[in-house]
């Protein structure tokens, strides 16, 4: 087991009140495995990623839970230890919107080489040489190391950002909506690149997306998030073909299919207010199967026989 996250909580303080962005998330991840984290925007997927990297915004009120990486409890590390030992060395990240992920006044090659200079004490030339190799690996001309971000297209920038994430051979890469800002054709290229890297390097990944179809393309297992909770976690096949949680069912039904004569459904109601989350099961106001119990009691994580986990009273 590479990563074990249990009962992760992250609350923000805002003028309106406490935002329960991540509220008791637990999952684990094997070496070389890819986990998809799927949900609507604002469901806490990105916050989960930031919590794993311990990149907390200033207004954090609560940050609790256990994160065990390589059988080490990294939540107990000091800020400085975490920065020097975990960030980028063990967990790296590809952020949402590659457009803004690169410093506009530094050459992209240097930005890829920089973690090697800082963390591995490489000298600059050596690090740049390795950056050129990484560029080749992600399908960029090695000469692009001398370019500035504004001289690259969106797809190229995303490749640079991926190369940057690979720089220190991390054990885990978190990909936060790595393709959502790109054109569809470029999106496909990037997805292919990610699949190739996964096969070639055997790195574990957490793939965050709102697009469950995209997640199924790359991921071994998929976790569906709703309102700060994981509501269903199973293999990609299980979740995609036979979702159990009513929300997961709705989510999958809302995906348009090319070869099916079916009108995509939408999920009635609005995403919940994370300042005042609904009582009991957070999905109950939008759930067609909701019972009195759902309103009052929060369902536990229920393990089904086929190994998946569902957070729903229908199965309890």
């Amino acid at each position, binding site marked *: 087991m590479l990563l074990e996250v249990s009962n992760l909580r992250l609350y923000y303080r805002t003028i309106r009140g406490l935002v329960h962005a991540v509220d008791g998330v637990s999952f684990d991840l094997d070496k070389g495995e890819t986990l998809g984290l799927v949900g609507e925007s604002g469901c806490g997927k990105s916050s989960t990623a930031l919590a794993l990297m311990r990149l907390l915004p200033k207004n954090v009120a609560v940050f609790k839970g256990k994160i065990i990486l390589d059988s080490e409890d990294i939540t107990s590390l000091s800020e400085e230890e975490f920065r020097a030992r975990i960030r980028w*060395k063990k967990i790296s990240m590809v952020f949402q919107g590659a457009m803004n992920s*690169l410093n506009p006044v530094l050459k992209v090659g240097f930005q890829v080489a920089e973690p090697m200079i800082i963390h591995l004490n490489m000298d600059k030339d050596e690090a740049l040489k390795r950056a050129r190799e990484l560029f080749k690996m992600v399908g960029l001309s090695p000469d692009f190391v001398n370019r500035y971000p504004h001289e690259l297209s969106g797809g190229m920038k995303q490749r640079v950002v991926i190369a940057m994430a690979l720089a220190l051979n991390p054990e885990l890469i978190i990909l936060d909506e790595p393709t959502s800002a790109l054109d569809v054709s470029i999106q496909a290229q990037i997805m292919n690149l990610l699949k190739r890297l996964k096969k070639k390097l055997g790195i574990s990944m957490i793939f965050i997306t709102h697009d469950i179809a995209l997640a199924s393309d790359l991921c071994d297992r998929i976790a569906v998030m709703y309102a700060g909770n994981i509501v269903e976690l199973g293999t990609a096949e299980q979740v995609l073909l036979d979702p159990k949680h009513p929300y997961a069912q709705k989510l999958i039904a809302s995906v348009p299919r090319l070869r099916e004569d079916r009108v995509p459904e939408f999920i009635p109601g609005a995403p919940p207010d994370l300042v005042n989350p609904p009582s009991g099961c957070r999905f109950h106001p939008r759930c067609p199967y909701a019972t009195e119990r759902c309103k009052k009691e929060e369902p536990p994580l229920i393990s089904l026989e086929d190994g998946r986990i569902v957070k729903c009273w229908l199965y309890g």
Partner: protein
Amino acid sequence: MALAKALAFKAISLMIVLIGVLFLTVIILGMTGVSDKILRSILNEQLRGIRQQLATRIKDPNELNKALEQIKQELIKAYGLDKPWYARMHKMVLRILRLDLGYARTIQTFSGSKKISDILKERIPNTILLMTTALLINYGIGLLIGVKLAAKSGTLLDRAVSLYSAVSYAIPTWWLGMLMILVFHYYLHLFPAGGMYSVPPPQGTFLRFLDLLKHVTLPVITLIIALSGSWIYTVRAILISIAQEDFVTVARAKGLPENLVLRRYIIRPAAPPLLTNIILGLAGSMGGAILTETVFGWPGMGTLYYQAIMSVDESLILALTYVFTLIYILARFLLEILYVILDPRVRY
């Protein structure tokens, strides 16, 4: 190549400004008849010199006057004073471009020269000394405080500084200078009221330097107080907006030490917009320095301006207008080059 092209484009547009100012001033001088006045004063100055030369050779006063009259007529022709102003406009423009600026009415250099180019040669270094000292310190202080405040945005201190910025924008620099003299010279006797050196100046390089330091303190502090408010505010606003950029989060995720993140991912990317603000504020800062000089009697261009106005010296005003614009444009161009170095985006 593209770099050279961008700079050439800037240089050309700044040259147009310079030429535009030059033509505007020359046309106004011509239309108001002031250019005739200026030329006549130059001519008379020259005639006086010639008279002294001739007087050694020609002893007969009648002969002398006759010879002088002849020379005078020649000079009038040479200067084009027999023609309307627009016919000799190009000559005047060329004369100014060559920095052949004529003679001052009453002001002279230490060595007694009334040639305006000599006077300016004496004054400009003093202005540049005061201006660059004050502006550099101001930019430095603004950066330091702005960075500190950006990290504390929303606090009471932060809001107090915002208020200070608003008020400091409204304070006339020159009035602040007068206030400083009143407080620190008249009441507290801490600093000299003006000038650049004591009279007589102390002997020895080090003592002279100390003396200069004592004289430069009040004008520099005045300028800094007046200019720093809006500058700190600008630095703070730009840094706050950059600190929210994604690439800063990426830098932190990369496990870079916090001071490196600040330096390389917040301050360094802030350099181009900060420089843009410096460029936009340059004319204003230089104007502030000119007015401050006047208050403190600092022997530079600003005081010269005041003296020229008080002695109703048209040639000197024209020369100062041109030279000030020239210095501004040179400074502007230096900053533009710096901008190109700092911002890779404009280089290609």
